[in-house]
């Protein structure tokens, strides 16, 4: 009889505490979510999207952790024992999920180091795109042809990442080849005048034009100008079109690659002879053996 009462009490106790714990956890989830949203709303003008995302996640997970510990306590478990067990469990999970752990730690480094932010344009290997999310395990890019690229944080830590939008201005280098017969000083002046007439090209740092190489078909020049980073592609394309028009209007030749065969001064020229009669046949049937 006594045993039945005890079982019934235990059952009632477990159900009540279970419901209470579930409610507590639910409240924790709601509160963490609410706190995160409130933080995002309140801090939108003060922080960048990157910082906002980082702090909002910290707030969310910290609150969730707090409520989880309280819930476990509410259920009657000894939290310190559980934390000890969790430590052992963490080691076990850590061995089992080394890649995820590595990504997680790399993500924390990335969040701290801030080599880029949400909205920046990155070039990672062969992928170039806008950062749409920086998460604990990976960074997500949207490429210009609208592809979604997920890059693990560990890969970002190990590889070279080029941030194309870190600084407000960028340099455009145009490789231009002109024929050997051209007056290079005149060509150089034409190019610099063209650059100074273009309003989107910065006055300072000043544009410059240098000879970079005596190529096989052309003298190679490099025209370097600076522009605002958001105009980079348009200005580069427009300048190339302007160079073509400029050279056409001033009679400056842009040579096609060509090959000159020279036998040397000590040797006789290549023998050339005009064959008389019918040209040799290039096709036809193979001679019978």
């Amino acid at each position, binding site marked *: 009889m006594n045993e039945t009462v005890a079982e019934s009490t235990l059952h009632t106790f477990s159900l009540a505490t279970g419901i209470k714990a579930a409610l507590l956890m639910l409240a924790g989830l709601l509160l963490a979510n609410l706190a995160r949203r409130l933080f995002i709303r309140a801090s939108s003008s003060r922080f960048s999207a990157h910082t906002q995302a980082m702090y909002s996640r910290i707030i969310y997970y910290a609150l969730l952790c707090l409520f989880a510990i309280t819930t476990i306590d509410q259920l009657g478990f000894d939290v310190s024992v559980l934390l000890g067990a969790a430590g052992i469990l963490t080691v076990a999970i850590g061995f089992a999920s080394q890649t995820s752990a590595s990504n997680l730690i790399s993500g924390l480094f990335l969040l701290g180091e801030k080599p880029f932010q949400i909205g920046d344009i990155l070039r990672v290997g062969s992928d170039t795109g806008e950062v749409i999310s920086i998460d604990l395990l990976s960074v997500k890019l949207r490429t210009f042809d609208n592809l979604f690229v997920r890059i693990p944080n560990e890969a970002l830590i190990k590889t070279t990442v080029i941030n194309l939008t870190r*600084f407000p201005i960028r340099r455009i280098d145009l490789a231009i080849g002109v024929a050997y017969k051209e007056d290079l000083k005149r060509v150089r002046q034409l190019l610099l005048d063209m650059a100074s007439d273009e*309003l989107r090209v910065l006055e*300072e740092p000043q544009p410059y034009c240098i000879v970079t190489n005596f190529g096989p078909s052309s003298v190679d020049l490099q025209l370097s100008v600076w522009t605002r980073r958001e105009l980079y592609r348009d200005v580069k394309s427009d300048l190339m079109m302007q160079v073509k028009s400029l050279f056409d209007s001033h009679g400056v030749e842009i040579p096609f690659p060509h090959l000159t065969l020279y036998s040397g001064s000590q040797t006789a020229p290549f023998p050339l002879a005009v064959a008389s009669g019918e040209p040799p046949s290039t096709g036809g049937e193979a001679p019978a053996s």
Partner: protein
Amino acid sequence: MTTATASEHPEPATLWDQQFTVDGDSSLAIAIGDLSLCTRLQPMEWQLFYLWEKRGIEGNFLCRSQPLPGGGELPNDRIAMDRITPQLRLLPRLADRPVVVRPYAPLTLAANCHLTLYVSTPVWLQMELSGRVLRELPVQQLSDTWMGNLTGEGQLCYGSQTHARLDRSQLLNLPYRVLTPVRIHNKSHQERRLERLSLPTPYLSVFASSQSLTTEALKITMDAEKAQGVVKIGRPPDNAQLLSAPRLSADKGILVSAWSNLFA
């Protein structure tokens, strides 16, 4: 009916501080500096046609009524609104970024000297359409430039050139350029070459005086030893009418900037 004024050499205040009424029968053509602008009122919308042609100092400020532009020319800008009135107001503003001016000829400031340079910059024509919508266009297009020692640290500015005149009587007083007197104090015991100077135009107001558009005077102290410049925005000029307020407000009218952001 379109009320428009074609002015030869009136005072800047009367030239700028006026309101036009544009109706559907004609359009208002404005030629100012390098800018040619035509505004047209259509049912529920304003249409703006504009282009820039380099005119140098030949540019003027003329407003006249003209027939509606024919042909199928597309406007550069259309502004739609539900309650439209035919009022158009023109105001001069200063550039939205600092303007870096470079003297045509190198200018050297003697040691421990005070002097006043007169520098002018083009206005941004602000149109207030039906008292509701604002549009701004520069009367002369300026190229971009970078002010700072490093390409990663500095400020994006507009670039312009100046005669940096020291004698006010030599100034041309163009109606579409704003004059800024710059009182420079070279505190250094060595002469300093002024290759460029950044004018903090977003912090300056535009006033109409009897001769020209003008801003507050700037007092710039060049402290080469500390590698910084202190810019104080002076008091409004006497007997001048305020036409437009500054875009940004400076703390107590004082701007302290790194040497590289002001002079080189």
